[in-house]
């Protein structure tokens, strides 16, 4: 903990250090130098190097603490040191192009050193003209207008509402894109079909194996409003239909929304013995959001998310009650089978980013306050409307020099017993992220 606090202190001190003057009143530039910089090359390679120490303040009475640390003595805090190398590259020749994005991670935590390498995306693209593109390989196909949440993201992994601008890992698929522009109120029409195979070794996390699934999106820019009609069918997951929209009401005010209808969805519930039940049910998911920019450059984002497939309060009570009883059994008999089953459950339905029914997301950020360029303080909160528990995360983002980005975050989790944030493993979290971009 001391190490992280010293590191954070040094970073904050460096944050506001005056930098030496690099130029006088008059600037100079060399046009031939700029022309060299803009020269097009057939290949590109870049990415970033990241160091991210995290301090967790543990809640030793919480359900998730008991599941994870029932047989360990970790004290009141945990440290984790994460490092990551992101590499992105491309090669273009004629109408064809190859692209990849990969992460190589190494971290040190309470279980010691560990690491992995993940190919986030790697695909071949054919772009014969601006009106048509065909891409095949491992690729992220993000659908929907939501900022923190999404209900119509039918062929992508869910994004993390605590870090929605971070990329997710793609699926192996083939996607085409036809675009047509018009005059009049309908300015653009675009059709995007997707084929997504699932086998025991490809996209196996998507759903039932040995099927080829089909999804499609029809986009239109109609009366200055983005509108998408979306569809997914296949035997790996149930059929689903979606609609989303986004529109600027004024130059500083935008609204967006998403609706998804999932007939015959396998809806899950948990009983008091920790058993998972599934039942066919027609499910509606939706979100509504807005983005507002003030004259002094503060941005407010508000999003309400309803997940009709989510767990209700009864399911949550059953799960937390089951964990408490399993922990008591472990303390009295040493039998951890109940806690092991709870751990399995927590990897599934209960372990998804936001497992319950209704959430409210709020974010306020202030771009370059007090004439401090490249500095953005922000705070965001995710509120579980059903059990009234929440997280509050203040954040400072600063780019002190070109390609160096510093982000300091602290998250506080607030909630009573048997509530989502009250039963999380942590009471609070402090995280520093240092990124250096290169190409």
């Amino acid at each position, binding site marked *: 903990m001391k190490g992280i606090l010293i590191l954070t202190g040094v970073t904050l001190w460096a944050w506001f250090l005056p930098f030496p003057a690099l130029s006088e009143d008059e600037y100079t530039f060399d046009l031939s130098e*700029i022309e060299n910089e803009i020269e097009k090359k057939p290949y590109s390679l870049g990415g970033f190097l990241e160091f991210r120490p995290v301090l967790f303040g543990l809640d030793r009475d919480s359900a998730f603490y008991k599941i994870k640390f029932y047989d360990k003595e970790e004290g009141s805090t945990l440290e984790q040191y994460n490092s990551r190398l992101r590499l*992105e590259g491309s090669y273009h020749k004629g109408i064809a192009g190859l692209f990849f994005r990969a992460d190589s991670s190494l971290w040190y935590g309470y279980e010691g050193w560990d690491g992995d390498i993940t190919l986030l995306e790697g695909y071949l693209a054919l772009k014969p003209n601006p009106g048509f593109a065909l891409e095949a390989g491992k690729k992220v196909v993000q659908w929907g207008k939501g900022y923190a949440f999404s209900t119509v993201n039918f062929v992508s992994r869910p994004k993390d509402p605590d870090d929605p601008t971070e990329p997710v890992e793609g699926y192996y698929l083939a996607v085409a894109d036809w675009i047509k522009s018009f005059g009049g109120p309908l300015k653009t029409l675009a059709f995007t079909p997707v084929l997504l195979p699932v086998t025991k070794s490809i996209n196996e996390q998507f759903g039932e194996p040995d099927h080829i699934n089909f999804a499609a999106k029809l986009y239109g820019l109609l009366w200055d409003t983005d509108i998408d009609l979306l569809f997914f069918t296949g035997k790996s997951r149930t059929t689903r239909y979606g609609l989303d929209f986004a529109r600027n009401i004024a130059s500083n005010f935008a609204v967006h929304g998403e609706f998804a209808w999932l007939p015959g969805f396998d809806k899950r519930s948990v009983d008091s013995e920790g058993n998972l039940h599934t039942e066919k049910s027609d499910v509606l998911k939706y979100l509504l959001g807005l983005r507002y920019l003030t004259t002094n450059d503060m941005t407010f984002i508000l999003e309400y998310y309803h997940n009709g497939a989510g767990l209700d309060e009864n399911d949550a009570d059953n799960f937390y009650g089951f964990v408490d009883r399993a922990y008591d059994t472990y303390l009295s008999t040493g039998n951890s089978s109940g806690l092991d089953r709870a751990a399995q459950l927590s990897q599934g339905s209960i372990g998804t980013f936001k497992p319950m029914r209704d959430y409210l997301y709020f974010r306020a950020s202030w771009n370059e306050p007090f004439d401090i360029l490249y500095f953005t303080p922000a705070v965001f909160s995710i509120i579980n409307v059903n059990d009234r528990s929440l997280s509050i995360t203040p954040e400072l983002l600063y780019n002190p020099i070109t390609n160096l980005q510093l982000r300091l975050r602290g998250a506080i989790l607030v909630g009573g017993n048997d509530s989502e944030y009250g039963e999380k493993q942590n009471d609070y979290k402090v995280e520093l992220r240092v990124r250096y971009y290169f190409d």
Partner: protein
Amino acid sequence: MAMMFSAPVYAIDGDLLLKKVDRNLNPEAYESYRKLINIEPDGRKREFILFTVKKGQDRVASLFLSPASENGRSTLRLGENMWLYIPNVGKPIRITSIQSVVGGVFNNSDILRLDYAAEYKVTKVEESKDEYLLHLKARTKAVAYDKLKMWVNKGDLLPTRVECLTEANMLIKTLYLKKVRDFGEGIVRPSVIETDSPLYKGYRSIMIFAKIKERDLPDEAFTLNFLPRVKSLR
């Protein structure tokens, strides 16, 4: 330096003059490479390189080529609709014209500038020996600046200075257009735009045109679906 302007000139068609200024600044359809430099009061500099394509009066797309932290970010403007695509996020999001994707004094509407005549009508023209002074008023409330005052050189009909004002005549920023250069194919225009603002005291931003040439692209290149692929136009 004070410049004496005569009474309003009613014989000159201000809107026609503005359209000539637009065509002198750039062809209606073009591609360009620009460097943006933000200079802070202590002399620190931050540089960005942008590739931009424009078609018609109100369609512009831009792509950041550097620095590495911004590489691949692209923006699209269709009239007052604006979107930003960040490769990490993987989908375009709507943005507003008055915010800035690069920080500093230039905002999105300066970087993704449409033809002046598409956004403004001329309310008054004043004339001195060497210059016209055009008073412009935004056609809609969605335009980033409600009023502009534009000083135009009579000889080449190129602007030399533009003041951006609020509805209450408060000065937001001033653009200084300098160093007229021949870019070839008949394009002769200022190669440097400097800006300062009373709202950012001591800060300056500079836009340098490295290349600009006429280029007509299909309409589909200015669509939301194409935004992640703007790089393929280079």
